[in-house]
């Protein structure tokens, strides 16, 4: 669908909502074209092609709202859905803070300068896609004879179009391309069997990592986990590898949501301009970061996005709001509305970046002397209300400042508030791999549960 057709269809939808009695409305169209080629043990295993699109419509009757979504874009069906949405908004209760966001002054940034859309998307023949995936897996197998099995390697490309209009006159759209290579392999020796994976992604095909590097890295990671031991239960420093430090940052940022604030559902309530982390930690948000995986020209309510500092040398500088949660707390939106087709906006992030330190990960391992270096976490034992944290961990045991052996079947536990206050070192190893980027983080002490 062309951009003009898309915006036309959305205007039709909000027009029908209006005609049926809505006082305001916004509508969103997301379409994507996704192609995945998977290989396993050198043979093609899957070819998936998913072309999908859907419309989400939010309507207001005064301060009452309802939201509808559909993958049936027939105009007759859309007309019916718009009418049902308005009827439903007649049943929900008026909430004085509910309403469209005032987009405010300013014009949309130059979308090409954001470097998230390869235009036109690279036309990559199927044989080439297969070759890239095979090369990644082959490199993993070539790493060591103990790489004996594979979950496969994939090459994926996705083009996504997002368009939005509202009855306040906002109209905007953007596109995003994404290319990715991933590889997951299994190392085996005697009775020990371990799986690990690696992936790389980029908005531009030409910037995508070499498939051989992805495969070799996956292979090395799986090998390094063979013959894990179970550590004794203890209290010790824990070094979070950059790959898992991201999740830690996501818990902190999640606690900054305006919704969590007014619901009393965050351990970070009433903490603005106070210390929420050690002074070594500075966290920024940059919605316009060139090539960022969370980059977007406007948020889920059409508000233009601006860079900001969230945590400045450990001091919390701002919570995150969309229009509704901002009004509830007597504040304005911070441009952090996130919108999916089937729901009203909520608070989300674009790109979150932890300011890197000067010391390498190896320096940090050396500094911690004895402790746990965590490379993978599983489970959902994180409570945003209390900050209580308890997850399953995999990694390596460190003695005398050096990695000794892999460890598994253990837990690490603490409280997010205390953990962030006791980040004693921030590594230099930051890489842009997802919407949250963090270097490795060394936490002074955590409880480790093992044998």
């Amino acid at each position, binding site marked *: 669908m062309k951009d003009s057709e898309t915006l036309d269809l959305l205007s039709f939808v909000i027009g029908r909502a209006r005609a049926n009695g809505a006082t305001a409305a916004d509508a969103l169209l997301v379409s994507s074209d996704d192609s995945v080629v998977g290989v396993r043990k050198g043979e093609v295993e899957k070819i998936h*092609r998913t072309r999908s699109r859907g419309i989400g419509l939010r309507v207001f009757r005064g301060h009452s709202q309802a939201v509808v979504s559909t*993958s049936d874009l027939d105009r007759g069906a859309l007309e019916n859905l718009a009418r049902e949405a308005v009827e439903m908004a007649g049943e929900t209760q008026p*909430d004085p803070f509910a309403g469209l966001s005032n987009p405010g002054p300013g014009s949309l940034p130059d979308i090409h300068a954001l470097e998230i859309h390869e235009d036109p998307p690279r036309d990559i023949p199927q044989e080439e896609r297969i070759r890239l995936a095979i090369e990644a897996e082959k490199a993993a197998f070539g790493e060591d004879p103990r790489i004996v099995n594979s979950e496969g390697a994939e090459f994926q490309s996705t083009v996504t179009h997002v368009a939005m209009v509202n009855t306040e006159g906002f109209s905007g759209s953007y596109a995003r391309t994404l290319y990715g290579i991933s590889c997951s392999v299994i190392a085996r020796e005697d009775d020990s069997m371990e799986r690990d994976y690696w992936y790389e992604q980029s908005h531009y095909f030409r910037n995508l990592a070499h498939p051989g590097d992805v495969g070799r890295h996956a292979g090395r990671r799986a090998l390094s986990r063979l013959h894990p031991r179970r550590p004794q239960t203890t209290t010790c420093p824990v070094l979070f590898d950059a790959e898992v430090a991201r999740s830690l940052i996501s818990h902190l940022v999640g606690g900054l949501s305006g919704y969590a604030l007014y619901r009393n559902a965050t351990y970070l309530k009433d903490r603005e301009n106070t210390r929420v982390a050690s002074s070594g930690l500075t966290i920024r948000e940059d919605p316009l970061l060139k090539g960022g995986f969370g980059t977007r020209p406007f948020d889920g309510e059409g508000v233009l996005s601006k860079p900001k500092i969230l945590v400045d040398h450990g001091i919390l500088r701002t919570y995150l709001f969309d229009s509704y949660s901002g009004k509830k707390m007597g504040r304005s939106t911070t441009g952090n509305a996130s919108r999916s087709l089937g729901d009203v906006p909520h608070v989300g992030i674009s790109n979150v970046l932890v300011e890197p330190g000067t010391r390498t990960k190896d320096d940090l391992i050396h500094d911690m002397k004895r402790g746990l270096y965590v490379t993978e976490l599983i489970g959902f034992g994180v409570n945003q209300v209390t900050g209580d944290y*308890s997850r399953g961990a995999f990694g390596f045991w460190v003695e005398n400042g050096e990695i000794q052996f892999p460890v598994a079947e253990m837990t690490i536990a603490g409280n997010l508030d205390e953990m962030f206050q006791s980040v004693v070192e921030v590594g230099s190893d930051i890489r842009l791999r997802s919407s949250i980027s963090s270097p490795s983080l060394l936490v002074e002490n955590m*409880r480790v549960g093992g*044998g």
Partner: protein
Amino acid sequence: MGREQESSSSEVMKFFENRFGAHEGVLADILGSAMGRHIDDADLYFEYTTAQSLSMEEGMVKKGGRHVSQGVGARILSGEKTGYAITEEIRPETLHEIIRTARSISLGTEGVSALRITPARRDSASLYPVSDTDLDVPLSLKKELLLEADSAARSQDPRVVQVMASVSTEMKSVMVVRRDGLVSADRLPLVRVNVTVIAEENGQRQTGSFGYGGRIPFSEVMGEPLRHAAREAARQAIVNLGARPCPTGSMPVVLGPGWPGILLHEAIGHGLEGDFNRKGTSAFSGRIGEHVASSLCTIVDDGTLPHRRGSLNVDDEGTPTQRTVLIENGVLKGYLQDRLNARLMGAAPTGNGRRESYAHPPMPRMTNTIMLPGETDPEEIVRSLDKGVYAVNFGGGQVDITSGKFVFSTSEAYWVENGRIQYPVRGATLIGNGPDVLTRVSMVGSDLHLDPGVGTCGKDGQSVPVGVGLPTIRVENLTVGGTA
């Protein structure tokens, strides 16, 4: 009763025929083009789903939603290869196009042959005879129910400061047309209510959450069940206000009945799915016939339980569901199979080929995973704990299939000494090794409970509704991830 099922199935076929022109001639034509020496299997999966939700917080019903989702997935299987393509614009031309795209997986020339479309015959009644009218409750009534839940939670205890509640209903019509011409159709109702409460005391805050659901008429959650969910969520939040740090390390753990069955789902269920075992990537690969649990343990996956959230009349490949014995008296008996993995392993499909929606190809998934009851009095099991954790409610869990390491996290648990409950403990993650954790099950209670019907399982980016069931059990030497 058998007739009722058949008529519902042919109604669904009629629906797709009327709405999208998917009549027998078109289907025969499209799948007839999916022939050829290199093609082992093929199917088309039609879906039309409508869902409605209403949610409340701060004593206000703030939002309502209605969602329509429609599409068709085409799949071609050739050896171990899968080609998959979808369309949301359902017309004969687009159906031909997706089957062509999916075909690109297979080598060889295009084969075409005449196909006879045969509606599947099923003799049993539907496991969930729930009609649209059973789900179609006026919004004003749902609104009232949500506000009732609010007052039920708040009147439970003045420390309740926030109540969030939601009700949702879904009706999914599906039709699977296989390359052998067999057509299976079904209508899948799904109802869910949920209440989350935040309680506060002396600046400390805690949450509690409870819900009910299943393939049931909406009337079954109205009134008392929803009020009970609200009181239960409030009770959990209040209990947790008094929680102390949980001890850490390896210790005996008693799991309460019902939802703690998530242990089975994570520790053994995923590891017994056919795909991982065909590829030899599961910690359970090649271990059929071995002792992987104590002889007290018999575990089944049962997709045939009436009205349960994880139940299906037929799976998403048209295979009737069944009760599959996974572990019998401690011995590993079988895997969970879809058609692809069953064919490649020389086994029979077990009715576990499931998919989130038309946008996803099926894979082996659990339905309702249950440990059968033993003979021990559950109170005796708790009393048997010298020093250990008694866990009665859990949040989510996760597993590393290859190494077998799995976790699940408590949301309500108690420290027990000398057989007596001492105090509630704060949320802790429990970690174990799937292939040996059940060998340390030392007691199995007589009190099998199924979970309340709100479980969702994620695998490879696809979510499907599932159930679990467990009697009270005692497990030796489980690692508890506390802070004390």
